[in-house]
């Protein structure tokens, strides 16, 4: 605040929001700085028109508010404009240059202090010009900035004018206080008012609002004139009667928010100064001390209004949020219950009513025990409460009973709600109906159990076949042979052939049992994941079958073979069956050639066992891999009809496929895929640990070969091999 010769000045830039000054062109920056300087200077001249302290400081000093608003709106570079405006005004047009510069620096420094504190502690101006002073905290930050900035500038300015001889050092105290109070109230009243006016550009008030604002300002002005002027012909003790003006500030605060309170406060301050300067009212001769205390009073009244407005704003915002949240809770697809710490229900949402059958009035004040089904264990509830009372969130599943007695499952999350001091005051439960999921789970579990049971029975049957069923077989065959050994001479050749049929039947049944055992053993053995040298396995099978291969006069060519991920024994079993089939179904008129080879197919290796045998008719290719499926009468070709089914089961359990290709005349190729040991497909085998009774049925033997390119490469390789 201050006076006389001028000392600072500055002003707000007008309007747009400023987000980042550095993004604006320098010409615009210069224009804004110039505008700031001009507005600061105008506000300073206005301030200097009023009362002064010792002729150098004005107790009403609006430019500080102008400066703060300019920096907040247009960025800290506007401090240059503040500097210029203050320097121009200080000490009049002919003042000494040094002191003009010092005055400018003081004003710019104060503006930067205020800008820095507000930006850091209260936040920046919003993108649509929203004032940062919209919360009680922010208003208190503004107060702090005003006090700190005003005090600093007051001390600086008073020392400066004393040093240059404008006032005596004995007047230092009065000048400093007057200067500080003027600056502080200028910042406190004017800055929020200007920011509110700026925000109004983005969100223009309606006609009614403008009208009410005009009425308010008129009334406040009239009230101030009564209190501070002599308009009623009576000079009032304005210090006391100033209280009568508080309602105008409250009016402004509640109806127009922080900007309203700030405008009314600014208006009151100016009216008081105007009347005093015009030689009217209490303050015309109350001296500068009296005027300074008036400014403090108006500042505090305004502060009250600002806080009220901020509180009102916060309350409205909080209420809006509460309405929003409560609408979310009301509309929620999950049941929501709120209880006090005793577990008594304070609130339930409509979904709760829908789920439980209880209306809100029926359950409020009761505890959720009314929902207990009696099927939960006591421990469950105890763990729930101990979790909640320890302040943690409990999650779990609850089986509840509806009003009509039926049961439903819920997945619940129950959390404690704390007050500002950390005490638990409520519990909130959000619950989702999972009855359907539970029922599906239990059906699934029953199905799995049923499958496991039937699977176990199958395995039991297989072991029966392997052991117990073989004993009677052996008795049949053994005693039939014994009959021939002991009584051979007494039997004729026909009897011998009958005995032979018995023995052959038993032999065939034994083979069936053995293959069935192999078939069921596939599920018991977990799929192998380790690398197995396919070439070594083929060589082993070839050696084991060398007699059959030689008897058939077959040539067996084996191409380069990779490592695959498979159980070694099972892989040998597959190759045994495939090579065995090639031998068995050889063409009577051409020498049998069998080739084994492999090509890469993505993550997999595609292995083939090809022959030039009798082939398989197209119609039978698909059904080839079904258990007990034989394409030939037993007289023509021996076999159990299990070998290919076993092979398919083994391959599929290792993540591969198996299929047959044949033109029905010139031979057959059986192809199957197995994972490369280094591929992700092999990793996945780790997860295939459960027996998969259904799998074989679903995927049976597709007979399409994979992509054409692969198939072509297979053919090339075959040619190389054979």
């Amino acid at each position, binding site marked *: 605040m201050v006076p006389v010769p001028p000392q600072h000045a500055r002003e707000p830039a007008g309007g747009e929001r400023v987000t980042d000054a550095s993004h604006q062109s320098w010409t615009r920056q210069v224009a804004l700085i110039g505008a700031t300087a001009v507005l600061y200077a105008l506000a300073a001249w206005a301030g200097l028109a009023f009362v002064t302290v010792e002729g150098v400081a004005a107790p009403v000093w609006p430019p500080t508010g102008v400066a703060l608003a300019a920096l907040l709106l247009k960025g800290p570079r506007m401090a240059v404009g503040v500097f210029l405006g203050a320097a121009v005004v200080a000490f009049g047009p002919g003042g000494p240059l040094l002191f003009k510069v010092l005055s400018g620096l003081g004003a710019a420094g104060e503006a930067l202090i205020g800008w820095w504190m507000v930006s850091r502690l209260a936040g920046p101006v919003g993108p649509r010009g929203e004032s940062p002073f919209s919360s009680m905290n922010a208003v208190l930050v503004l107060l702090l900035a005003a006090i700190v900035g005003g005090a600093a500038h007051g001390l600086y300015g008073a020392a400066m004018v004393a040093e240059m001889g404008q006032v005596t050092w004995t007047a230092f105290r009065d000048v400093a206080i007057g200067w500080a109070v003027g600056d502080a109230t200028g910042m406190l009243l004017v800055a929020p008012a200007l920011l509110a006016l700026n925000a109004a550009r983005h969100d223009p008030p309606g006609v009614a609002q403008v009208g009410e604002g005009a009425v308010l300002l008129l009334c406040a002005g009239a009230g101030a004139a009564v209190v501070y002027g002599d308009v009623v012909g009576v000079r009032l003790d304005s210090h006391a009667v100033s209280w009568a003006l508080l309602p105008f500030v409250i009016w402004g605060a509640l109806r127009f928010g922080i900007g309203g309170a700030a405008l009314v406060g600014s208006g009151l301050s100016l009216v008081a100064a105007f009347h005093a300067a015009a030689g009217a009212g209490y303050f015309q001769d109350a001296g500068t001390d009296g005027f300074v205390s008036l400014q403090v009073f108006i500042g505090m009244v305004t502060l009250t209004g600002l806080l009220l407005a901020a509180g009102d704003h916060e309350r409205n915002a909080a209420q809006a949020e509460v309405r929003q949240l409560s609408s979310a809770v009301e509309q929620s697809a999950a049941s929501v219950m709120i209880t006090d710490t005793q577990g008594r229900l304070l609130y339930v949402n409509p979904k709760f009513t829908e789920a439980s059958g209880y209306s809100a009035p029926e359950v409020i004040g009761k505890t959720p025990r009314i929902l207990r089904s009696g099927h939960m264990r006591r421990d469950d509830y105890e763990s729930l409460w101990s979790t909640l009372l320890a302040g943690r969130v409990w999650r779990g599943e609850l089986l509840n009973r509806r009003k009509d007695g039926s049961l439903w499952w819920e997945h619940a999350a129950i959390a404690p709600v704390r007050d500002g001091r950390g005490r638990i005051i409520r519990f909130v439960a959000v619950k989702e109906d999972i009855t359907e999921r539970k029922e599906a789970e239990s059906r699934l579990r029953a199905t799995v159990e049923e499958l496991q049971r039937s699977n176990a029975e199958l395995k039991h049957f297989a072991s029966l076949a*392997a*052991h117990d069923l*073989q004993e009677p077989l052996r008795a049949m065959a*053994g005693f039939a042979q014994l009959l021939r050994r002991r009584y051979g001479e007494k039997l004729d050749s026909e009897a011998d052939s009958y005995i032979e049929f018995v023995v052959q039947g038993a*032999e065939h049944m034994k083979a069936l049992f053995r293959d069935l055992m192999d078939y069921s053993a596939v599920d018991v053995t977990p799929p192998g994941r380790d690398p197995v040298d396919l070439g070594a396995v083929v060589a082993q099978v070839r050696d084991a079958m060398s007699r059959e291969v030689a008897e058939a006069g077959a040539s067996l060519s084996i191409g380069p073979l990779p490592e695959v991920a498979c159980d070694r024994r099972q892989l040998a079993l597959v190759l045994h069956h495939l090579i065995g089939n090639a031998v068995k179904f050889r063409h009577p008129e051409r020498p049998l050639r069998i080739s084994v080879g492999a090509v890469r197919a993505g993550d997999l290796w595609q292995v083939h066992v090809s022959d030039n045998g009798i082939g398989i008719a197209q119609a039978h290719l698909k059904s080839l891999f079904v258990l007990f499926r034989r394409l030939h009468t037993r007289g023509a070709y021996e076999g159990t009809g299990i070998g290919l089914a076993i092979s398919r089961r083994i391959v599929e359990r290792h993540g591969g496929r198996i299929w047959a290709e044949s033109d029905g005349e010139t031979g057959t190729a059986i192809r199957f895929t197995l994972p490369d040991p280094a591929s992700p497909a092999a990793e996945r085998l780790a997860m295939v640990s459960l027996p998969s009774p259904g799998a074989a049925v679903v995927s049976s033997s597709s007979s399409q070969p994979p992509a054409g390119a692969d198939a072509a490469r297979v053919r090339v390789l075959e040619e190389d091999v054979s």
Partner: protein
Amino acid sequence: MSASVGDEGPFVVLLVEDNPADARLTQEAFADAGRPVSLEWVRDGDDAMAFLRRHPPYTEAPRPHLVLLDLNMPRKDGRATLMEIKGDAALKALPVVVLTTSESRMDVEESYRAHANAYVTKPLDMDELVAKISALCDFWLDGVAAVPGKPAGR
């Protein structure tokens, strides 16, 4: 071996087999193999242990030179019997040959791990059975030395 047969009476084989038909076939196979053995037959592991330990009603039982043990039997099965014999200091020197229908690799491994002296699967074909029994006799009657302590119990 031949010494013990010659000096101390016939070579005694204990057949532990629950199936009478199988027992009979084995007996006939011994006959056809032409080996002079005394074949004793019990029907399960409990009886076998009683026989070996001369518990009633086998107080007069001879000491066998060889046990032929079926695996799948009611009451005490062959696996448990094998472990009991091999776990008994007085009996563990007695050669035990597992003679079973099972071709399961697990049974084979388990039996050898329990110190079975041999594992023989029962063939379906009578001729093969006779051949196997002959081979057994060749080995155990003629091929290897008798366990010196064994006949001491008589």
